[in-house]
């Protein structure tokens, strides 16, 4: 398992992440006003995911956490994907069949 860093060296990283999060917040507001067609939502979600990953890796020390923690976090992403995928595959395919009560 990985060594636990004492955190003395991470102060700079905290401020760096904070600055990056601020910039990305600005970017996501700017991008929302652009006419990107179908890409508006993917761009917004992409930026949000980047911000979330930064918070998890640096602020939540996931980078220096044991692998087991990373596995647990990964499992949450997996189950969230299953939840969304299976629900969406139901709702968005209902109109494919010409059946009442679809």
């Amino acid at each position: 398992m990985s060594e636990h860093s004492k955190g003395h060296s991470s102060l700079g990283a905290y401020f760096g992440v904070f600055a990056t999060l601020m910039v990305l917040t600005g970017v996501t507001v700017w991008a929302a006003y652009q006419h990107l067609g179908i890409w508006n939502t993917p761009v917004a979600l992409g930026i949000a995911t980047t911000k979330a990953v930064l918070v998890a890796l640096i602020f939540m020390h996931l980078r220096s956490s044991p692998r087991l923690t990373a596995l647990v976090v990964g499992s949450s992403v997996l189950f969230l994907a299953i939840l969304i995928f299976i629900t969406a595959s139901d709702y968005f395919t209902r109109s494919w069949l010409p059946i009442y009560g679809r």
Partner: protein
Amino acid sequence: MASAPSHAAASAAPPELRHHFVDLAAQKEASSLGMWIFLVTEVLFFGGMFTAYAIYRETYRAAFEGASNLLDLRLGAFNTVVLILSSLTMALAVWAGQQGRRRLIVLFLLLTMALGATFLGVKVVEYKQKFDRHEVPGPHYVIPLDEETHQPLPRQSEMFFSLYFCMTGLHAAHMIIGIGLLTWLVARARRGEFTVRYNTPVDLVGLYWHFVDIVWIFLFPLLYLLGRHTL
């Protein structure tokens, strides 16, 4: 574990060590893991709402985009900045905890609480606005006019506001609980309970606070920004 604890360390057991752990490092690792597992359940708790949002947003796109444009973007963006800043101060509180610096821990925890309270205060202003304009779902809901065309929005705009209140309400509930936890931490920190050796509670509340921040990082673009390109 990376290495077995030395028997010398185990025999002089620190008072914070519960007897069923070999050493403080193992105890802390178990505590952190427990918190992360709780956060996984929280991801799925919020995930249900995000899924519902995704489905209805795709089904009633025009209604959701029009209703989203009625939210106050400046207040939403301000709150995003406030919350990210509070995550920074929380990270600094955890950092101070690792050094066992009592005054710094208390200072950063109080800053985090103040920023959290600011966020909730802005949320109150936003909610009040929605009530005043009858944009709250229920018997008093009045179908609002589109920002640009000034035509009434589709009926399903009410569903957007239902999801808006559920999602931001659940998030705000987490913030209130977070501020409660911070209050408890401040009291313990002032008694000097957190040292270089033992600061796990600060760490774990930090994880919770950052998680709540991450939820808002997704809520902000999904609720406030999704229809702006149509303006």
